[in-house]
Structures are given as C-alpha cells and as structure tokens.
C-alpha cells in the first residue's frame, strides 16, 4: 500500500469506522513500516478522540421541552382538522351544498314540530312559518323532471295547505294526516264516522276553493342535486319565508322588499333534503 492509498483511508482507520478487512490490515501494516504515516495516524486518532469527547459533551444540548408541547399540540390540531374535513364534507361537496342540506333538515324538523303543535287547540300554532306538510306518492318522480311531475298534480294523500288551516279549527288531529298513523286514522273513522266524513268533505271543499284562488309557479329543481339522489317518495312543505332567503337559495327574485314574507312549497325527500321549490301567491 502506498502513502497516498493510506491517506485515503486514514480517517476510517482512526475513527474505527472501517470494518476489519484485508485493506484495514494492509493499512495498519503500512503504518508499522512508514514512520510518517504512523505519526499521521496517531494525530488522526487523537482528533477522533477529541471529536468523540465533544460528541459526548454535546449530548446535553436538547431542544426545549416547550417545543415538544407545541409540536404535540400542532400534531393534534393538524389531525383533528383533517378528520373534521373528512366528516363534514364527504365526497368533496361544497360548503354551500352542506348548508342547503342543513337548512332543509331544519325545515323538516320545524314541520314535524308544527304538526305536533296542531294536536293541541292552540291558536298561535297558525303563526308558524310552516303552514302544512303534504305526503306525496312520487313513484314516477325523478330528479330530472320535477316541473312536469309536480305540475301534473302528484298523488296527494292529504289536503292542501289552506284547507288544513280550517280543519285545524274543527278538529286538530285531522289536519295533519301525514303525522297521524294510518291505523289510528282508520280507528278514528270507525269510532266517529259522521264527524270525520263531515270534516273530510269540508276539507275537500276548501281544497277545491283554495286551488282555484292560489297561483302557483312550477317547481324549480334545486340544482345542487344529482341523479344519484333521486327520490321515491317525500313530502311537500308549505313555508313562509323572507324573500331574501329564497333569493339566497338561488331563486331569481327581485330583492326589493327583501323582508317581505312569501309563501313557497318545498319538496323534501325522505332524507330531509329539499329537492324542489315553487312559489305560491
């Protein structure tokens, strides 16, 4: 081995980094024969010892414990945010869509509450913004043809909105047939057939009268829905809402008199998501 070759491996020999192999032994043999290389090896070993001593001394230096706490907090919040994103916005739906679905759910909840309130003869119940809920048999109802399906008068199993108002005064239980179980309705008819039939005929009369008086627009499908959410059945909810709220839903309304309350029918699917809306005058 030449002095040059020895110089190339001297650091590894001195620091003990080089494993014992043939070249390692050759290097040591060269150092035994060459006084200059032996002296350099000793110097390199001394330097390695100095570096090792410094490495041991340096180990007392560590990052502040506060830093660990900070990073652990950051780690927790980072993964919490990630989890929230997954839960809140599945399938990359936008925030606006999520808000619309939430609004529809709230409307449904209010509807159910209103139907419960009508069981007690409380006159203030009429002040509810949701006037009535109507169940629909929408087997032919597809998301792509709301307008035609609904303007063609779907198979309504209960009364129209204003008729329900009147019926409420006569007999509170009769006005929200959707909320009353079918069996209970049958039982009621059997127990008091005359009264129920009278109420029903009164309701039918009011329906006919009201349908003539009311002017309704076509149902406008809510465009954030896709065909995957087509519904088999659902309910129509009559609501009274501020003009600006409807405009916020994307309906082309004049915003003059934004606070003005107007009537609208909303089609809700079984999942509580609003499918379509129409205006009533």
């Amino acid at each position, binding site marked *: 081995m030449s002095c040059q070759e020895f110089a190339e491996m001297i650091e590894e020999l001195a620091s003990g980094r080089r494993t014992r192999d043939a070249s390692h032994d050759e290097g040591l043999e060269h150092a035994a024969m060459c006084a200059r290389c032996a002296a350099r090896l*000793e*110097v*390199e070993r001394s330097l390695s*010892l100095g*570096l090792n001593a410094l490495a041991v001394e340096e180990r007392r230096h560590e990052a502040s414990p506060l830093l*660990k706490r900070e990073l652990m907090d950051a780690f927790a919040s980072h993964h919490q945010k990630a989890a929230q994103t997954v839960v809140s916005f599945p399938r990359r739906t936008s925030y606006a869509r999520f808000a619309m679905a939430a609004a529809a759910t709230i409307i449904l909840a209010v509807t159910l509450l209103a139907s419960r309130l009508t069981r007690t003869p409380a006159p203030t119940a009429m002040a509810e913004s949701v006037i009535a809920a109507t169940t629909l048999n929408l087997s032919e109802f597809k998301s792509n043809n709301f307008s035609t399906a609904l303007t063609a008068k779907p198979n309504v199993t209960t009364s129209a909105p204003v008729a329900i108002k009147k019926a409420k005064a006569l007999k509170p239980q009769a006005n929200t047939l959707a909320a009353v179980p079918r069996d209970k309705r049958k039982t009621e008819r059997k127990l008091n057939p005359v009264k129920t039939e009278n109420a029903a005929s009164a309701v039918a009369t009011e329906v006919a009268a009201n349908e003539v008086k009311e002017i309704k627009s076509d149902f406008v499908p809510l465009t954030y829905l896709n065909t995957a959410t087509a519904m088999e059945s659902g309910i129509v909810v009559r609501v009274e809402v501020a003009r600006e709220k409807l405009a916020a839903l994307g309906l082309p309304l004049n915003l003059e008199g934004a606070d003005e309350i107007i009537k609208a029918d909303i089609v809700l699917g079984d999942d509580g998501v609003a499918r379509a809306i129409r205006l009533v005058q």
Partner: protein
Amino acid sequence: MLAGDASAFASLYDRCQGGIYRFALRMCDSESIAQDVTHDVFLALMRDGEQYDPARGTLVAYLYGIARNRVFQLLKRERNFVSMDEDAEEFMWTEAAIAPDDPLVELSRNETIEAVRQAIMALPAHYREVVLLCNLHELSYEQAASVIGCAVGTVRSRLHRARLLLLEKLRGLNEVGAIRRKEHESKAEDATRLSRARFAI
C-alpha cells in the same frame, strides 16, 4: 404517525430531536435558530410526511436533510452564509502543509473539547456539516450523502479535507494558547520579581 398516532410522533421526536437540534446549533451557532429549525423540521414531517420515500434513504437522513435546507435558508437570510466555494481553502491541501505533530496532546479533556468545538465552528459550512454529520452524529457516508444531496465520494473527500483543516486550526489555537500561556507566565514572573525587589528594599 401519518395516520395521527400522537404517541408514534412523540417517540420519533424524542429519538431524533437531540441530533437535529445539535446539528442546527453547531451549524448556526444560535440556540434560538436551532429551536426554530427543530420546530420546522417536525412540522414539515407532520404536514408533508407522505413525501418521505424510504427507498431514497433513512428517516433520520430525511430529517437531517430538511434541517440542513432550513439552516442554509436561515443563514442566507441573515447574511451569515459562508461560501460553498471549495477552492477557497484549496491552497492548504498539500502534503507539505500537513504537520505530523498532535495539537491535542498537551490539552486536558475540557480544553480538548473546547478547542475542537472552536475549530469546528471556524470551518467553512460545507466542511463543518460533514464533520458534524459523520463524526459527531455518526451518520454513515451514504446517509450524509443523502442529507447533503451529493455523491458518497464527495462526502469522503470533504471529510478528509475538513479533518486536515481542523488539525491546522487546532494547531493555530494551540499556538495562540501557547503564546497566551507564555504571556501569563511572564506576567507572573514580573510580579514575583517586583515583590522580591520591594522586599529587598
């Protein structure tokens, strides 16, 4: 850890933070910057950990690599950046310039540690980092090459030159130390003579 296991993150932090912190500390010679670098390294791991590719090196090397990049960014920003030009110190690398005497032979352990530390801090950044990685942090040449982003041969040659430069600096420190010791001894002798003269008078 990437799945959100806090204990795995804590374990990894405990295992690696010391090395990262010390590397940054000796590269920048600033505790606050070393804290910032350590913080940034683990934050980057937390946010972009999926970018780590085990095929390209160990996780430790990956973390040191982030730390190194951050250190050089900060050094550049603070205008303390040392030139990466290798030729700057090239004139020293002749065999004739290498003295065979041991500059550490007469020093105590504490003096040795302090002298080596000062010599390392006086090295140019590209030599200092290989000494820190290979000699103080005991990374292999391959790991150091992965951290620096160069060939293993480059690490070997830089380390060889860095150690020669260290020895030169230690000799310089020794000479300065010897001069100071002589000055101190001569002052002590002067004081003794003066007191003897006063006593004689």
